[in-house]
């Protein structure tokens, strides 16, 4: 009896495999990491069955390793994704998303009267409670939950 199952997405030699993305967030991850600007092969898959989250997305990016700053951007859409760092077909490191202290130009303030929604400028949020995911707008001071904010 074999315990081998078919691999859902073809393996890559070197690069990053982003796994456990909630299926509906897959394209937001693509946007946040600006994968559309890469010139290396990128495989985007979604609606794969997942024991943990029902349906998941997987993204495989060849020859690309993300910085911690890039990874921290994912905290606004998918806090539980895992990034597998691949060297020569082997997973050499697993990285998780760490919520940063500050988010610049990534999400919108949900206060319509905030200056950031009335002026062409970048938003800035301070993460005041990482466990509960509470952000505070640098300009209007309004506190908001990380899962309730929209991407810019």
């Amino acid at each position: 009896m074999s315990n081998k199952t078919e691999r859902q997405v073809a393996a890559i030699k070197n690069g990053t495999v982003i796994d456990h993305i909630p299926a509906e967030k897959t394209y937001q991850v693509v946007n946040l990491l600006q994968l559309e600007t890469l010139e290396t092969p990128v495989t985007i898959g979604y609606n794969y069955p997942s024991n943990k989250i029902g349906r998941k997305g997987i993204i495989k990016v060849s020859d690309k390793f993300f910085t911690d700053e890039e990874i921290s951007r994912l905290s606004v859409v998918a806090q539980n994704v895992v990034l597998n760092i691949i060297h020569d077909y082997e997973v050499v490191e697993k990285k998780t998303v760490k919520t940063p202290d500050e988010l610049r130009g990534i999400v919108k303030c949900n206060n319509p009267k905030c200056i950031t929604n009335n002026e062409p400028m970048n938003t800035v949020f301070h993460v005041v409670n990482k466990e509960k995911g509470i952000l505070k707008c640098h300009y209007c001071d309004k506190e908001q939950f990380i899962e309730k904010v929209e991407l810019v």
Partner: protein
Amino acid sequence: MRHDFVTIADLPKEKLMYLLEMAKEFENHPNRELLKGKVVATLFFEPSTRTRLSFETAANRLGARVIGFSDAKASSVTKGETLKDTILMVSNYADVIVMRHYVEGAAQYASEVAPVPIVNAGDGAHMHPSQCLLDLYSIYKTQGTLENLNIYLVGDLKYGRTVHSLITAMRHFNPTFHFVAPKELAMPEEYKIYCREHGIRFEEHTDFNEDVIADADILYMTRVQKERFSDLMEYERVKNVYILKRQMLCKAKDNMKILHPLPRVNEIAYDVDESSHAYYIQQAGNGLFAREAIFCYVLGITLDEVRNDKTII
């Protein structure tokens, strides 16, 4: 050193006391030429006659000249100019910009783009730090201290930004607050959490009578506005409860003073004006001294320079 005056919430205790000492110097001698040769711009994207007059008077009494507009309709905003462009343009002309805006966080953003100091004269429902400074000055002057006072906040505690600022600014001084408000306008949970986190004692009341306020050192009145109520029956029921009447002062302590950010409509009966506890008109007058201090602070004029000032008229 130049500063901005955008919020009072993050100023340390020493800075607050420094500004209050400076305001005291200006109360002794309001007319000087410390700002002679300077140009002050007052940009009021939202009309506010008394705040603007108070700032312009402060600038004039210090010898500065004043430019500006009192309504966004008279500016390029109606043509679609960004705040950044307006601020940068005016920075070419003025040494300091006083700004009132209807958008929250506008002053913080202006202070990040402007090469000259920004004074926040109110940004929407967010901050109004010069009002807060004059409130502190009024408390300090009438009580001789800011420490260990019983401060009663009455009326609209939900939307009233002046009462919220007062709580944050008073955190350094071991106050006891009493929140007197109808349920629908009660102090928001976030400020009660703030009090607990900062060890500020508070009690909540829905009744408003001579017994409730007998212990007050400061009675800070605000207006209960009809448009704040979703339930008009509730408004009709409470609209006359939070009106201060002369006979309610019968048990008040001698040192108790009544403050109000003004304008008042009917929340303080007119016969209270004759009482020795009434202080709201003088309070507004203190705004001049507080704003003279703010101008010096942002332009880097020190308390020592104010004390040794040879330009007093």
